[in-house]
């Protein structure tokens, strides 16, 4: 078997224009011939501004959106050609963590229910008994740095960082190999962001996960990812190793994006006052 986890081949997505009372709106070409390959065990970053097609591409990988043309293969299986049952089995192996931990947890479900829900849904594939599910839930929580005492609480009792940890635990429940991370830290404070990023690094080393990391924060992508693709208006502008792109961007768009990145650099100015000066 090849070492390609995810292969996106020439994918285009056109949203047809809609006919409304004010006439017909134009069709939207959300993705234009996007091709990329994600290797097993790597972190692949997808960077783009709002409206660039990041979300459409992510939804296509989950097969929540059907591409107009082109194919998406996860470990060699073409998503467009799978039956519903096969697709369900595949989805146990591809999971997602969403951007907003405040909106992506059901407030009426306890942490236990949230984490075991994927185990129930994928019962056919995983075949865990009730007791095994409970054990697995406790194990998942400790994996993301929380404890079994949190199992029977509700989302509102947790901070943003803890909620995102719960989302990660839920995504890991079915034992996925590919994890889609849709801006998992952009709703968090920097100190909490650092904790979550470190957790993601640690989980990848421990579980051998493949990450598909979507973000508009270049600093975070540079920190976490091995390779990166820049997407603009539905087209991949540049892709390659993170170091190459950040140090020597080739396209105008990449240069612009990297130039606009606010970095914590000491600005030129009056000499720094030393301690006790």
């Amino acid at each position: 078997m090849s070492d390609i986890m995810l292969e996106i081949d020439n994918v285009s997505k056109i949203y047809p224009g809609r006919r409304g009372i004010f006439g017909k709106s134009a069709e939207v070409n959300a993705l234009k011939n996007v091709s990329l390959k994600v290797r097993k065990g790597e972190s692949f970053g997808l960077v783009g501004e709002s409206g660039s097609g990041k979300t459409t591409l992510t939804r296509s990988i989950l097969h929540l959106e059907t591409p107009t043309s082109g194919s998406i293969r996860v470990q060699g299986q073409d998503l467009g050609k799978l039956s519903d049952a096969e697709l369900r089995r595949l989805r146990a192996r591809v999971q997602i963590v969403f951007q907003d931990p405040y909106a992506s947890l059901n407030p009426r479900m306890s942490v236990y229910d949230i984490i075991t829900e994927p185990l129930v849904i994928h019962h056919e594939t995983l075949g865990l008994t009730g007791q095994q599910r409970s054990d697995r839930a406790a194990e998942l929580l400790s994996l993301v740095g929380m404890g079994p005492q949190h199992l029977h609480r509700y989302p509102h009792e947790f901070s943003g960082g803890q909620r995102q940890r719960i989302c990660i635990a839920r995504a890991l429940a079915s034992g996925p190999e590919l994890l889609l991370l849709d801006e998992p830290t952009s709703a968090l404070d920097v100190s909490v962001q650092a904790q979550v990023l470190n957790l993601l690094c640690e989980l990848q080393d421990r579980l051998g996960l493949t990450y598909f990391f979507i973000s508009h924060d270049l600093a975070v992508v540079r920190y976490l990812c091995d390779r990166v693709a820049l997407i603009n208006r539905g087209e991949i502008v540049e892709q390659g190793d993170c170091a190459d792109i950040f140090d020597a961007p080739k396209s105008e768009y990449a240069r612009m994006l990297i130039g606009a990145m606010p970095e914590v650099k000491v600005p030129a100015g009056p000499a720094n006052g030393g301690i006790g000066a």
Partner: protein
Amino acid sequence: MTAPLLSIRDLHLRMSSFDGRAHVLNGINLTVNRREIWGLVGESGCGKSLTGLSVSRLQPTPPAHYTAGEILLEGQDLLKLSPAQMQRLRGKRIGMIFQDPTTNLNPAFRIGEQLVDVALAAAEHDASVIGCPPSAGRRERRRAARKLAGEMLAHVGIPNALARLDDYPHQFSGGMRQRVLIAMALIGRPDLLIADEPTTALDVSVQAQILKLIKSSVDEYDMGVVLITHNLGVVAQTCSHVAVMYAGNIVESGPVAAVIGNPVHPYTRALMSAIPTRETKRGELRGLAGSVPNLITPPPGCRFAPRCQFALPACTAAMPASVPVGNDHSAACIRVAEMEALVHE
């Protein structure tokens, strides 16, 4: 010497909630002069937005309750003004830009009308804003205000400004709407601009343009700016001075080059090391353990002590006073003098 543009002195603010009273601002001291851009940074819930809202008196009382302190705008205490007097200052002397450009424009009115309203309100305070005498007729004043609105839109970089005055907010993109809001904040030629996370909802490329615009307006309008943000990168790029807040206190403040180049407060240091930079190796990002304290029952003494790696028993005895560590640079920590040695250990 004339009074500074904005001087916040020992401001204490308590908030009533169902769980009790939270001491959310705990002795804020901040002085902003004209042509200075002060960055107010800190994590969610540290009180940075409340400080901004206190200056424009947009924080309803109750639930808020100012227990001590004063907010002086060129010597005049804003906390003592009546709501009507305060309303006359907003838009004219104090301009504000908020975080979310999508919700701060009225969707039912053309943006030209919204800008004209602000200009006319400001003109009641200072007729020179729209450049026509107070004796002028209503129609003439409106025409002058509309002309000014067009000029302001062009000034903030909206192409084809005159034609776009007749557009509705939904016809603008996020970045363009934020420009409209900046035009609205600047149209009364304010002395003080309070920008509360003006670029958080925007893409980095648009963010860079907006920050450049704010920066260039400072000298042009001879104003002072308080830029509230959680992004230290934005501060490093845009501001002349910075105040770092934690749990209702300013823990470190001073010129940007001094504070970012040589942070002395442990919280500032922790905040900076939590941001991934070019040099950060994978897995080596230093997060800050623990979480922001509960402000209803805050920890005794220094509020950062429970999370501080350098904390001593003495830290919990009393709130540390702000001590100068250099030119205008000060930090509220009892171990400031030892910090350099501690860090190298």
